């Protein structure tokens, strides 16, 4: 059932076992293991869900419940970089709309989409807890603060 390309390495499997042992019910390790899987396979496909379900001896439906509940699991292929612009209150007042509009123009995609070359996925998200330096966005694992269109251009330059 599981596609052969979906398979953790021996090292990754050892990490899965380590995480599972941390919780009274190994099901507790589902979130970190799904993140591992997303990193390893690029996104959480149905094949990945079934593979993870096997690792936890769960039915795939119960893994699907978790994956659809949270927003940080990508259920479609994502770009090499993820740009998530905050559009919550503080950032909105500080011009997030302009920043988001600028990104859409520069990247040529709508929110939720990935550039045709697979470089960037653009998202709009709720508060990321950096209101004091609004407007802001998250690029992969780092925060980019006090954004201006010029600063956004420089950041995009750096994304390959």
């Amino acid at each position, binding site marked *: 059932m599981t596609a052969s390309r979906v398979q953790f390495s021996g090292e990754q499997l050892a990490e899965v076992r380590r995480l599972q042992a941390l919780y009274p019910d190994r099901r507790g390790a589902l979130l970190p293991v799904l993140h591992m899987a997303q990193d390893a396979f690029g996104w959480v496909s*149905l094949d990945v*869900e*079934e593979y993870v379900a096997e690792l936890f001896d*769960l*039915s*795939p*439906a*119960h893994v*699907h*419940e978790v994956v*659809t*509940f949270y927003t940080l699991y990508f259920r479609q292929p994502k770009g090499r970089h993820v740009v998530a612009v905050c559009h919550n209150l503080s950032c909105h007042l500080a011009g997030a709309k302009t920043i988001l509009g600028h990104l859409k123009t520069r990247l040529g995609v709508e929110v939720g989409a990935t550039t045709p070359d697979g470089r960037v996925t653009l998202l709009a998200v709720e508060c990321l807890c950096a209101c004091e330096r609004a407007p802001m966005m998250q690029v992969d694992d780092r925060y980019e603060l006090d954004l201006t269109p010029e600063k956004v251009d420089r950041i995009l330059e750096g994304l390959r």
Partner: protein
Amino acid sequence: MPRLTINGKEVEVPAGTNLIEAARRVGVEVPHYCYHPGLSIAGQCRLCMVDIEKTPRPTIACNTQAVDGMVVWTETDRVKETRRSVMEFHLINHPLDCPVCDQAGECWLQIYYMKHGLYDPRMTDEKVHKPKAVPLGPHVILDAERCILCSRCVRFCDEITKTGELGIFHRGDHSEIGLFPGRELANPYSANVVDICPVGALTDRDFRFQVRVWYLDATKSICPGCARGCNIEVHTNRRRPHHAEGRRVARLKPRYNADVNRWWICDAGRYGYGAVDDKTRLRAPSRREGEAVADATWEEAIAAVAGTLGRLRPDELGVIASPRMANEDLFALRRVLERRGIRRVGCRVPPREPGDEDDILIRADKNPNARGAALLGLDGDAAAVLAAARARQVKCLWVFDHDLLASGWPEASVEQALRAVETLIFTGPNANATSERAHWVLPSAAWVEREGTYTNFEGRVQRFRQALEPLGQALPAWDLLGRVLVALGAPAAPPRAERWFGELAAAVPAFAGLSYRSIGDAGQAAATGPA
């Protein structure tokens, strides 16, 4: 055992009893959706709120265990207001499609809205839309908009069948019940989720749009699908015969029995009633001469059969009875056998394919009364009867229910036996290849068309009641056998199944002391110990 007070009434309950069950014991119904006594506690629907003295706010009754000295009130103004608010939340996105919803009339949203809601709706926004009329599997169809996310179906698949097909996907008011993409809900017990769904989200594809539930009559019965003898209700449609294309049995539903099937039945049993209204039903006695088949009257048929039984020597007579016959039928047959001294009798015919079995309910033996036939001593070697027919020792063979030509016996050897006998008699509700060979066909009523008892594999004797009139001229097997008995010179035969059972209980030690009254709705164990 904790002793507590509910609405002013004292009650003592076993430790661990929750407040819904404790309230039930004093006749108080606490409304609820997600709680089901056969499943784990979810605490999801928030409807079963009750007031407990010395607690600051209403508490869910399902997840609160009775404690000594607890004082519970289920109808305070605060509880009523809470229920009304919870109902309002449950119905916020619920479509107003009761007129086209199969659940209407047995829907707990309708019932509780009328009993506990009755608010003026304040919802002015567009409702959230979700998938509708999605087949989940062969028997169940989903309307996600009607779902209140009680999770009973999810827990059923996790805890009872342990197949885990269903889940609640997405979040907040986008949450919806569903299957893992590409899978289906096809476990052998899948349709139980329809029974436990308190609303119209999961409905039965077989029953859907056939007839409104308020036109149905319910009759207590026993599933004849296997040796378990699950307790069921037969829902019949007699008031709207023009609906459902003349189907008289509209559906079967499980009936709770703590010792047999609890709340469940399998899908094979639930949908196994098709033969009742099938076109293969035998409606009148008939005789065959050569290729010509003609209807006969009961008088002619009984006289002919009794004449043959009386004319031949006992060892020229063979009977293959059926473990599908009720105890009453088998006992009437035994009286006929005794009267003529017939010893060539058996009832077990091997099936062509071995039956499936599991550790939930399903038994490999697909007959409802094999144990009863054994206790009545009719469990002889059926293969030997057939062999005697093949050897032309048996001149008249009487077959009940079985299609010997579709059995596990080699077709050629059955063929040879059926050709060798001078007179083949068939009794059963439905035609089959064997009945087509019969010289005399005496049609018997289907199980829903008469009353009787089956003895399940554990030796539990259980009653099934009459839900419908026999089709055509069919008679209960005990009745036609009684007529044969009288034609053979017996002074009289019992006129009702209950009287036959009385005679049976007096004659067969395993049934000593049992009566229809003592068996009741829950069944009673026969004395099946070493005898």
